[in-house]
């Protein structure tokens, strides 16, 4: 059933109150676990309040793309399973699932987090392909931040499997970690009425006007952005939201 209406929510935000007792710019409790699955090369479980997201990293050897013969690549897939939210349906990936995967992909790819050149085994013939899978186990809002965080921790946690000539021995893991440069943290800021909030619950998510995900590196450079929601944002809105995201990204960085 739909819950409180939007006017009611905005009225509460006017006095900096959210119905789960938080303030506008307050995250729920976050827990991060890494290396939770032994069959994956890297894995992580992130919970933000009741939201729970799993991320797994698998690695395989493939032929590189013709336009970048000396670079490995990443693939991010997200599957929104009905187990996590009755609104999600089985079948081909929904628009939400594609957006979630692409946003996480962009955060990792565009930040240059993984050094693609170092994933090359033999130029033009063999490169490592890192595939990151994201599966929410429970959706109580803010899948974006939880997924981005889970993907980051899983990638950080990942080790190469043993490569024996052409064959990969997944049962034997090496101690070589992925070549990483940066650690991008994504923060989603939402606009409801004239208010900005972070870490929405599922009921708040249904009532937002606009959403902006910003991905920050350690040196506070912006690596990626994604705007969502139906209402446009003004330049001032954008500045304010980026500012909020920057301070919040420092908070989230403690969990990595």
């Amino acid at each position, binding site marked *: *059933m*739909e*819950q*409180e*209406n939007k*006017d*009611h929510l905005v*009225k*509460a935000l*006017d*006095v900096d*109150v*959210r*119905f*789960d*007792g938080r303030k506008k710019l307050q995250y729920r409790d976050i827990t991060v676990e890494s290396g939770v699955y032994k069959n994956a090369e890297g894995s992580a479980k992130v919970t933000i309040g009741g939201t729970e997201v799993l991320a797994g990293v698998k690695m395989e050897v493939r032929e590189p793309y013709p336009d970048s013969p000396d670079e490995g690549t990443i693939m991010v897939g997200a599957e929104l399973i009905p187990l996590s939210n009755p609104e999600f349906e089985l079948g081909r990936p929904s628009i939400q699932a594609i957006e979630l995967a692409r946003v996480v992909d962009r955060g990792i790819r565009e930040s240059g987090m993984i050094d693609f050149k170092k994933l090359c085994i033999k130029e033009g013939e063999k490169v490592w392909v890192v595939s990151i899978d994201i599966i929410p186990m429970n959706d109580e809002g803010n899948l974006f931040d939880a997924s981005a965080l889970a993907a980051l921790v899983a990638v950080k946690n990942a080790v190469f499997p043993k490569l024996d000539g052409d064959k990969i021995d997944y049962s034997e893991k090496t101690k070589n970690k992925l070549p990483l440069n940066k650690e991008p943290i994504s923060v989603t800021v939402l606009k409801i009425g004239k208010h900005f909030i972070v870490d929405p619950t599922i009921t708040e998510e249904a009532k937002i006007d606009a959403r902006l995900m910003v991905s920050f590196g350690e040196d506070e450079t912006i690596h990626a952005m994604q705007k969502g929601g139906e209402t446009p944002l003004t330049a001032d809105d954008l500045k304010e939201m980026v500012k909020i995201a920057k301070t919040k990204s420092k908070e989230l960085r403690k969990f990595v």
Partner: protein
Amino acid sequence: MSKLLVKERDVVVPGEDIVEGMDYLPSKGTYREGDKIVASQLGLVRIDGKVIKVIPLSGKYAPKRGDTVIGKVIDVLMSGWRIDIDSAYSAMLGLKEATSSFIARGADLTKYYDIGEYIAVNITNVTSQKLIDVSMRGPGLRKLEGGCFIEVNTSKVPRIIGKQGSMISMIKQATDCRVIVGQNGIVWISGTPEMEAIAIDVIKKIAKEAHIPGLTDTIQTYLDKKVPKKKIVEPKAEEQEKKPEVKDTEEKKETPSKEEKK
């Protein structure tokens, strides 16, 4: 002589024997098989004199005549409204039962209740085919405007209301919110945003700790801690006249402790 095979408040699974012998009567969630009473649901055993009940741990709301529930209008029909009461079946609100004012022939029914609006209704009849009739004639039955709605497990509703409404009136008094608890597990809360947030928190806490004995005292202390003293002084102003001394000492005690926290 009958023999009880489980204790009160024990968890039973479907098919588990509860009583051996004919001295007890099976009620909701149980059935008789031979000379035994057997559970048909997963839940807690409740022994009420000679009557054996199983209180389910969870599950959708099963409509019952006489229950007050909170529903959402999902359709406006020729002669009434269809109401979603968060059960397996939807309910029907007839024109005659909807309002005490006169509704002219051919009037626009959305003027009274439109799709998506919430109303508090009373279940007047449930047929064997599970056709549910609801009425809005009765005290407190009305359209619910503003406020927020939360969902709780239907089996926890009696604990939220408390004995003769003790728990709910405690919450109302402390937070100064208007609260309506539907038997279908939907709770409507309306007040100032801060107090609504506290009321939601408390109700969720009750639902979570419903099985723990001594709940009322726990919730009372929790409420005292949660509600800022400033807010509580206003509604309790009348009470202060009766027992001025006691109230004063209470206030003195709690003000310094609040400062320490800050």
